[in-house]
């Protein structure tokens, strides 16, 4: 059951990702992106990482993508963007590089596919002890508290920067 669901979600995620690239209109691409992110959230659920799944949907699908949709709708009204997407040598080159990287990583991972994951605290045990949120909140506020706080500063800086540049009165 879990295996089948995994392949369903994986296929949806990959299909969505391809749809993003191949979509005819930006809005279609965006919806494919939402599909892709949602499928990844589904995979998180299969991995018992419920909190991550919820946050994935809330933050990416629910907030960031809505803002993208906003921007696309506001900027793209009646604009024909097809000439902007120049094909040719560069895209061929990027495809080649991306393909080479993909092939290389694929080969590496295929060669190590029997690698067993390192022993660590099982997610189930952590969730049982601290709850779905506590299992992730605990390391976040103890071991990783410094990066966590720096992220706060980062967001503040980004907000200040955006406000400075977007303010109407100068």
């Amino acid at each position: 059951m879990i295996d089948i669901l995994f392949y369903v979600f994986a296929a949806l995620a990959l299909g969505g990702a391809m749809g993003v690239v191949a979509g005819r209109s930006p809005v279609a691409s965006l919806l494919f992106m939402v599909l892709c992110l949602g499928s990844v959230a589904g995979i998180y659920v299969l991995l018992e990482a419920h909190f991550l799944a919820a946050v994935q949907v809330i933050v990416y699908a629910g907030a960031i993508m809505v803002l993208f949709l906003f921007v696309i709708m506001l900027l793209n009204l009646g604009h024909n963007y097809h000439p902007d997407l120049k094909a040719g040598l560069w895209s061929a080159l990027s495809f080649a590089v991306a393909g080479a990287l993909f092939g290389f990583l694929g080969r590496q991972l295929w060669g190590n596919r029997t690698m067993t994951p390192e022993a660590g605290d099982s997610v189930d045990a952590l969730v049982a002890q601290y709850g779905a949120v506590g299992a992730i909140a605990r390391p976040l506020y103890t071991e990783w508290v410094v990066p966590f706080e720096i992220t706060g500063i980062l967001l503040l800086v980004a907000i200040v920067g955006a406000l400075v540049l977007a303010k109407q009165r100068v």
Partner: protein
Amino acid sequence: MVIDFSSNLDYVRALLPEIILCVWGMVVLMAGVWRGESSEEGPRAEGLGWLALVGVAFAAVANGWLHGVREVGTDGMIAVDGFRLFSNWIFLTAALLGMLVSFAYVYRQRLQAGEYYALMLFSVAGMMFMAGARNLIVVFLGLEVMSIAVYALSAFNRRDRRSAEAGLKYFILGAFSTGFFLYGIALTYGATGSTHLPTIALAVSNGTAHGALLLFGVALMGVGFAFKVSAVPFHMWAPDVYEGAPSPVTAFMSAGVKAAAFAAFFRVFLVSFQGAYESWYGVMWWLSATTMVGANLIALVQTNVKRMLAYSSIAHGGYLLVAITAANQASAGAALFYLLVYTVMNISAFAVVIAVSNHGEERLEFEDYAGLGRNQPGLALLLTLFLLSLAGFPGTGGFMAKFQLLLGAMDAQLWVLSVILVLSTVVSYAYYLRLAWYTWMRDPADGGSPLPVYLPIGMRLALVVGAAVVIWLGLFPGSVLDLARASAAGLGVAGPMVEILH
């Protein structure tokens, strides 16, 4: 005083300079809001700058206090070692000088002073996080804090199209390079199973790291760093951004950002990827050689002073890459010393440019400097001093720093690179001295109308400090050099490893 990271509270003490800067950034922001929207009141706009400088002073006190602190127990997210503290001094110097040269500019261009100084403080905090990070995640976050603040600063002058262009270019290419960097971190994590630098170092040196993945990770992180230090061929953004950004921002970022990127570069490559030296040694060699040669040659044909200084800044990045290629104790100490000297002399040179350009974006061509020696002999003298120091003229700090780099490279038996370093330095004399020649020998094209130059107190202070430091480090480098060497020793670089190759 002892710091033990097994207690989370000790992070507050270990991160005191960073915390002070961040909190002070918020204080300055609030003060800017309370000051009101109008930027008409000049003295008060400058008041915000002085307020920000108070924060820098507090951070400096905290940084000095950390010198007496010893780290025990397990490694934390942040290193408390000499390397970090010395780097912090460099960033604080950059902040001090960068703010001093900004005062009049911010006032004249009617920029939003509160946000301007706050962003500067935040970016300095980001630099400190980068230099002190003992975890790749912290390196990345510090990089982002610094970069985003600087992106916004580059585009800060909303009335100037070129400023917007600079901000956008910097932002897009910076985001691009961040992508490389982050992917590199991910692959390194995949290869070693950790983002903790000492753990990575262990995995790399005893060979448990996954070879090919690690190679890709190292390569991608190298590309990310190369973007940030604007090494040729990843330098394309630098001249346009340096030219378009407000001049004080250019001064600040050409020194501070570069120093921070190099500090993190050193820590990551010389500590974590030490064991994989053979695989990145060659790349660094070529990167450094092309940067030195390319940047100096292109700088020869520039006619805009800011662009010339931009290429000069790229070239200095090339010299510092020599230290990374050498990867030994002497080079690490020399690089720290070099970064300090470079920060002071580069911002000071920009200070003169800002003064001549009337705290705006005027009179930036070489031609505009004609007659400066006659009208403003003092300023012209200072400019000449800073240019000579940038070029590496004996008796100036620049010479001492470059000499130390050269010693480090010879120590690592990098003969060819040493020769390139010397030759490209000789080439660089041409363009630095060309500007000096315009200053002293040329008459202005329009027949000698005097250049009105306004030198407010902040600018005077910056120029005096800059000149004093450049001369002092040129003549009596001993104590600072010893401190730099001792600081680099804390990094734990094993020593010259070229023997592996020979």
